[in-house]
């Protein structure tokens, strides 16, 4: 199934929630959605027999200067098609629903996005840092991140 067909189908079901279909000849096509009902959209994509997106390949956070972006790469084992969903949250209140109950693999991916960008996935059962130490400060992959001078008595910069 091509992304534009999926886009049409989603538009029918979710209307306003689905913003646009971005097509670019040299790069991947993606569907932009609003963050509020992302879990419902994903559940629909997973359970609908026409899509069967049973596999969350990748969940990545992005720093878009003013906003934070979250990108979902989906894959269907059975129908062998892929889909990219993109959503944005404001930097001062980066909240959106968690997908842990849709795909269990989202657990660690979301923790990583929280660790690196400070995106707050609501409904996640264990949203703590995963790669950095638990008492680390700041969100390292944000563009305005300054690395700390010292951590536990060890100098960080060279």
């Amino acid at each position: 199934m091509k992304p534009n067909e999926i886009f049409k189908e989603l538009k029918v079901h979710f209307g306003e929630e689905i913003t646009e279909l971005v097509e670019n000849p040299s790069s991947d096509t993606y569907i932009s959605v609003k963050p509020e009902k992302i879990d419902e959209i994903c559940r629909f994509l997973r359970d609908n027999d026409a899509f069967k997106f049973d596999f969350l390949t990748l969940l990545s956070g992005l720093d878009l200067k003013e906003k934070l972006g979250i990108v979902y790469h989906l894959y269907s084992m059975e129908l062998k098609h892929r889909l990219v969903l993109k959503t944005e949250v404001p930097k001062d209140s980066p909240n959106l629903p968690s997908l842990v109950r849709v795909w269990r693999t989202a657990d660690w991916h979301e923790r990583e996005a929280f660790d690196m960008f400070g995106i707050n996935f609501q409904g996640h059962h264990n949203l703590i840092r995963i790669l950095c130490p638990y008492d680390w400060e700041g969100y390292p992959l944000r563009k305005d991140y300054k690395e700390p001078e010292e951590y536990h008595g060890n100098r960080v910069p060279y």
Partner: protein
Amino acid sequence: MGLLNRLNDPIGLDGIIFGTVEDLLNWGRSKSDWYLQFGLACCAIEFMAVNASHFDMMRYGCIPRSSPRQADFVIISGTVTLKMADRLKRVYEQMAEPKYVIAMGSCANSGGPYWEHGYHVLKGVDRILPVDVYVPGCPPRPEALQEGLILLQKKIRMEEIFRKRKRLAEEDLANQMNYK
């Protein structure tokens, strides 16, 4: 150092007998190096390769131990991150004296390729541990690590035991006098 802690300081007897005893003790320590099985990153694979049949670390008398208590030296093979630094220090402190450290690879020496933007990388393991031998390379070739091992053994062979104890005792005495 085990038995040596109980030996009285043989001050004034640093002649032939104690020189020979010192040589024997150093020989034992240099020829029987048990290392801690401790892989950190990419270098650990080369370290395993040195361990394996093709290069065979046991030729030098190096036997793997998995408990730090029984190890004589530790090879820091790879990048030490800040999260790891505390643990590494603790592992080092758990080792029994006399203990040695080989820093293997650029990351352990100085942070390696991660020195500039690595916000979570410790820039050189010598910031937390005393390093005896540095082996450069990213990762070092097995031959380089073998060279490092031989260097470490040479270093152990040339160590002072009794004279050092005498000197330390003198320094200690002097410090106490100054303090008073």
